[in-house]
């Protein structure tokens, strides 16, 4: 069997009194597009920083492409490209210089320049290749940050909330490129707050809450496990009867979203509304999305 891209075994991390990671186990296989979801403070960034060697685990083992991140850190880091969450940059250099330096730290030389140029082009940075990092706009800095993580062509790519504050155009460009890299065999691990992003891109998802993995499955299975549907109703007269209030997930004026566990509940809902003399102006029935799964696992209990 192939070596897993990432293997996390019983990892604990303590910050003084705070128990940030509580015995995490997780395996990401080579070639996967893996999503790591969870609210702020769930431990996603702590986990990524341990992978990257910026933090050391208090207990447990983590390896990248079979190389332990503590005992064999050089090989582990060689295999890993991390896009940090913060928009950091070095104000002394231009984009191409930074990327060549970054590749150089990993021992790559001139033979790597073609790849650096390819990354620059794919991320739409060609016009800015000779622009000082300081003069780039926020979106361009974000692109450069992604390019830096890819400069040494790592087999495993970790993106820590890369789309926070990024416009739609860049998001599409970025995902187009990352998806291509994934198709070419790179493993991609993504943390994000945008659930539709994870739903669209990730083949498998782990959901974290307070330092633990609370769900781990393929995206399709997670969605099937919670076979709920959303019934969206807009009332032009009358109110939502009390008998339906337990099903209301969301209300915005006269627009209600009801969670249904079975399709037969549609009929029940409609008859209750009729009894209450409510008039339906518009109605929609939608499949549940990852957000519903996420909320039921992380938000609710």
């Amino acid at each position, binding site marked *: 069997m192939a070596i897993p891209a990432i293997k996390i075994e019983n990892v604990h991390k303590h910050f003084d009194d705070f128990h940030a990671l509580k015995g995490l186990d997780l395996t990401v296989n080579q070639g996967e597009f893996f999503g790591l979801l969870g609210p702020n403070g769930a431990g996603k960034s702590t986990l990524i920083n341990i992978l990257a*060697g*910026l933090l*050391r685990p208090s207990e447990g083992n983590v390896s990248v492409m079979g190389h332990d991140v503590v005992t064999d850190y*050089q090989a582990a880091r060689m295999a890993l490209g991390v896009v940090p969450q913060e928009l950091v940059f*070095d104000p002394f250099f231009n984009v191409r210089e930074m990327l060549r330096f*970054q590749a150089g730290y*990993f*021992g790559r*030389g001139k033979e790597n320049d073609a790849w650096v140029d390819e990354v620059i082009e794919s991320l739409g940075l060609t016009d800015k290749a000779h622009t000082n990092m300081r003069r780039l706009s926020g979106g361009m800095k974000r692109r450069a940050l992604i390019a830096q993580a890819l400069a040494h062509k790592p087999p495993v790519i970790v993106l820590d909330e890369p789309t926070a504050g990024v416009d739609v155009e860049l998001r599409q460009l970025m995902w187009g490129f990352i998806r291509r890299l994934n198709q070419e065999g790179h493993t991609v691990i993504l943390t994000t707050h945008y659930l539709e992003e994870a739903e669209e891109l990730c083949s498998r998802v782990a959901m974290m809450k307070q330092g633990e993995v609370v769900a781990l499955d393929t995206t399709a299975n997670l969605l099937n496990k919670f076979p709920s549907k959303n019934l969206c109703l807009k009332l032009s007269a009358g109110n939502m009867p009390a008998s339906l209030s337990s099903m209301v997930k969301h209300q915005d004026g006269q627009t209600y979203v009801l969670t249904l566990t079975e399709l037969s509940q549609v009929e029940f809902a409609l008859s209750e509304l009729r009894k209450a003399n409510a008039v339906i102006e518009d109605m929609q029935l939608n499949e549940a999305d990852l957000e519903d799964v996420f909320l039921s696992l992380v938000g609710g209990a």
Partner: protein
Amino acid sequence: MSLINAQTRGVYTLFKKEVLRFWRVAFQTIASPMITALLYLLIFSHVLADRVQVYDNVAYTAFLIPGLIMMSLLQNSFANTSSSLVQSKVMGNIVFVLLTPLTYLQFFIAFLAGAVVRGFVVGFSIYLVAIFFVDLPIMHIGWVLVFALLGSALLGTFGIIAGIWAERFDQMAAFQNFVIMPLTFLSGVFYSIHSLPPIWQTISHFNPFFYMIDGFRYGFFGQGDISPWVSLGVVLTFLVLLVALSLKMLKSGYKLRG
């Protein structure tokens, strides 16, 4: 490509980045200390030239120059590592280096080599300008180079320690004003410590800067306040201690890795 080559290239790249970092702002990092040193030279030589005679056959102006060269070399070696580290910590771009396979020893070597180059560039620039105006012999080039190398390495290492320790620019400024400046000015840059009251002479003997400057000056004039061999011993001892401390900090990941 073999692994050895890849490792060497990693260190070399970081070293190159450290050198380019100060070279890009050469006006601030080279020209500005040069002008400062030449102003000192102009003023002190005018005021003191007729009054102070430190060694026989050595004009005060000539005596002053090696002190000024060494002072600038030391301060700039310190500034290179310390400001680079503090800046990249405050800006957050230190992660770009921390994410790489570079070992703590490679990190140390690259930063230190950058500091030595900055020290030498500044020191040599001042020398080149000074010899236009003043007749300055070099009796023992070996001692000059040894003390320039050890001095810049010592202060470069000290800068690494300060840069790792300091979390903000004001902490670094305090370090510079309360440690580096007093040590430079109380080291015999402008005078021979024999002209000081006995108590200050004793205190000066605990200042490593004194030995670096005295040994360096010995290389020019063949005479100094103490034997260059003693200075060499003291400077080497301090260097070994500081290198050990900074490597210990880097190895443990102190303030860099959690």
